[in-house]
């Protein structure tokens, strides 16, 4: 509101140096207590250790980075000014309409290509356990991302405790299978339904609240679930969790060594290999993820799905149009929770062991980062972000320590650069094209 519109002005060298010096000075102030000094434990007593060379490096990097950044910004500004005269918002809308009429967006081509690669992947790496394991993890995060995308990307509700629904799904399956002998497929709908019920229970009183209150309440809810799991030992096994959860079976046949009752290898007359179970799990999560995608895409075209997008854009206008905002939000919340619950069931079945450790706030933050970085509302963006965020720490063990640090940094930078996410999709799923335009 207080922004002053400057006439275009290229900063001089001395202005740039001054600006960079100011940034370096702030970096120095912030860096002294954190980078410059640290305390180390020396037999029960703390001693201060100094790291001045690292601090000098940090300050120097800030100085150089600030100059490079302002130069880069200048170049981008000059280019976009040259382009602006040719392209207007109206022509962009026309292009979008034309793409909708043709029915094929570049996104859908890439989407089909990605599905093809995902299906073919095990054919090339059928013996590589490591790759199949990572691919399965990526798919779990993709499914979670698509589930949370309904809540955050489509309905615009910031949910910071999404992992709670994931935990509800996982513990429901773990308890039903270890205590009552339920199978994977029987437990799946029950766990999803229970997670949705938790979503409604939490959402019903709180969804009338404003966005940031909702964020805090969901954060608190996530912690309540985690604390309950840690402390309610009789139900959840406490911090030790639940072990020996049965793996999913195929029509009653399990992946067991040969000559065991119900071994699938015996049934099909093929040689037993532990890889078969991993491949089966991989295709199972691929199937679940694709079903999730189909479901969400279909929902977006229904009146309810369009109401989600409308509520995200302008709640008051929706109320004025007679849309029951609370019901709309609640449905998004419940569906997102249900999808999280499904992913949780798969997670428990794949690991065979669950504990509250797997359901901390940082897990919620990772899923949120996937949705935000990929682009809120974009299905393809979630896939890209999940690929990058899950594979990054695999590149090097040293890197894992910095993973969350980079997540946080990336979340700030991407919000400032593109407040909608990298592949933001805020355009409505369906656009009404007046028939008169055809002529």
């Amino acid at each position, binding site marked *: 509101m207080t922004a002053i519109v400057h006439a275009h002005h290229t900063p001089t060298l001395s202005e740039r140096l001054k600006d960079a010096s100011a940034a370096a000075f702030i970096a120095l102030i912030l860096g002294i207590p954190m980078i410059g000094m640290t305390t180390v434990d020396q037999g029960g007593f703390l001693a201060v250790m100094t790291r001045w060379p690292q601090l000098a490096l940090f300050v120097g990097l800030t100085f150089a980075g600030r100059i490079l950044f302002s130069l880069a910004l200048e170049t981008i500004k000059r280019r976009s000014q040259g382009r602006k005269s040719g392209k207007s918002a109206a022509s962009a809308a026309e292009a979008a309409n034309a793409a909708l009429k043709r029915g094929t967006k570049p996104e859908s081509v890439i989407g089909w290509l990605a599905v093809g690669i995902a299906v073919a992947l095990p054919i090339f790496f059928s013996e590589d356990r490591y790759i199949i394991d990572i691919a399965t993890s990526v798919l779990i995060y993709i499914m979670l991302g698509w589930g949370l995308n309904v809540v955050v990307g489509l309905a615009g509700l910031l949910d910071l405790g999404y992992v709670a629904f994931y935990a509800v799904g996982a513990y429901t399956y773990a308890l039903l299978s270890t205590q009552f002998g339920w199978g994977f497929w029987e437990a799946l709908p029950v766990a999803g339904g229970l997670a949705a019920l938790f979503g409604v229970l939490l959402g019903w009183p709180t969804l009338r609240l404003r966005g940031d209150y909702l964020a805090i309440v969901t954060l608190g809810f996530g912690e309540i679930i985690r604390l309950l799991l840690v*402390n309610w030992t009789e139900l959840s096994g406490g911090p030790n969790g639940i072990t020996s959860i049965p793996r999913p079976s195929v029509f009653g046949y399990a992946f067991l060594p040969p000559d065991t009752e119900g071994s699938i290898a015996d049934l099909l007359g093929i040689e037993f290999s532990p890889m078969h179970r991993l491949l089966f799990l991989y295709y199972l999560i691929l199937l679940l993820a694709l079903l999730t995608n189909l479901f969400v895409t279909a929902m977006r075209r229904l009146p309810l799905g369009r109401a989600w997008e409308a509520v995200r854009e302008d709640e008051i206008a929706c109320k004025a149009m007679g849309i029951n905002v609370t019901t709309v939000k609640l449905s998004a919340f419940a569906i997102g929770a249900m999808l999280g619950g499904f992913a949780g069931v798969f997670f428990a079945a794949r690991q065979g062991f669950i504990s509250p450790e797997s359901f901390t706030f940082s897990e919620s933050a990772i899923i949120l980062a996937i949705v*935000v970085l990929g682009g809120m509302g974009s299905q393809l963006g979630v896939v890209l972000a999940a690929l990058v965020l899950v594979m990054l720490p695999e590149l090097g063990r040293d890197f894992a320590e910095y993973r969350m640090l980079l997540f946080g940094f990336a979340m700030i930078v991407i919000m*400032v650069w593109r407040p909608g996410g990298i592949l933001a999709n805020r355009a409505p799923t369906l656009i009404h094209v007046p028939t008169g335009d055809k002529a």
Partner: protein
Amino acid sequence: MAQALQQLINGLTLGSVYGLIAIGYTMVYGIIGMINFAHGDVYMVSAFIAVTTFTLLAALGVSSVPLALLVVLVVAVLFTSAYGWTVERTAYRPLRNSTRLAPLISAIGMSIFLQNMVQVTQGARVKPVPPMLSDGITLFTSGSYSVRISSAQILIIVLTVVLMAGFTWLITRTAFGRQQRACEQDRLVTAFLGYNVDRIISLTFMIGAALAAVAGVMVTMYYGVVDFYIGFVAGIKAFTAAVLGGVGSLPGAMLGGLIIGLLESFWASYLSPEYKDIGTFVILIMVLMFRPSGLLGRPEVEKV
């Protein structure tokens, strides 16, 4: 009876700390209408600065506890204000006129960043600080139970009262306070009147961070245990305090802090220590359900 009195003293101490942090939430909310998600982590950063400064002073041979405390307070307040300023400048200012969701997410990014920055630079282990001012006065003894108030507790409560008085004076009596309140009412008109709104908002973040820094130093001195995760729980509790008192209301933040502190120590003592955090979260959800404007807050009217 004796146990209740002891818990009252402990609760007041804890409540003072929550109240000091809650003021940061409430002030920022009042002026930009947004929750500063990174505030709890700014408090955590201040506790680490306090640990380093205490250790440095001990190494330099400063043996007088009051002098050491004073130096640590000044150092922590100065550096932490710089962190508060940076949070506003990087995570909030560029997004001031953006959608509602964007600054929330950038602030959560900032919170994750600060937590992990401290974990990487200062280590993930708990930092033990030798206890200070643990001597105290035994008020009375009933049976085998004696009610004590330690010097640290007295200091925390007295310092909080003094800071609150000074802070109320700052907001109600000074030129900056008037500008700050004007900004809360209408940012655009304040800008028209010739006040630098950016500067007022920056200062608000810095004051919030400074009060959180006092809380950080007090907690370091009182509990003597600091790790990179303390900001998360303390942040949620202080936020609950701010909501309970009515977001945007300064006396409300203090009142809410005291109630949460008392509740926590009584819950831990009489019910179950494991579930004390759940008690806070349940209160948060109940208040938001039945009285979203809090105890002392005004109901909010959403304008189109």
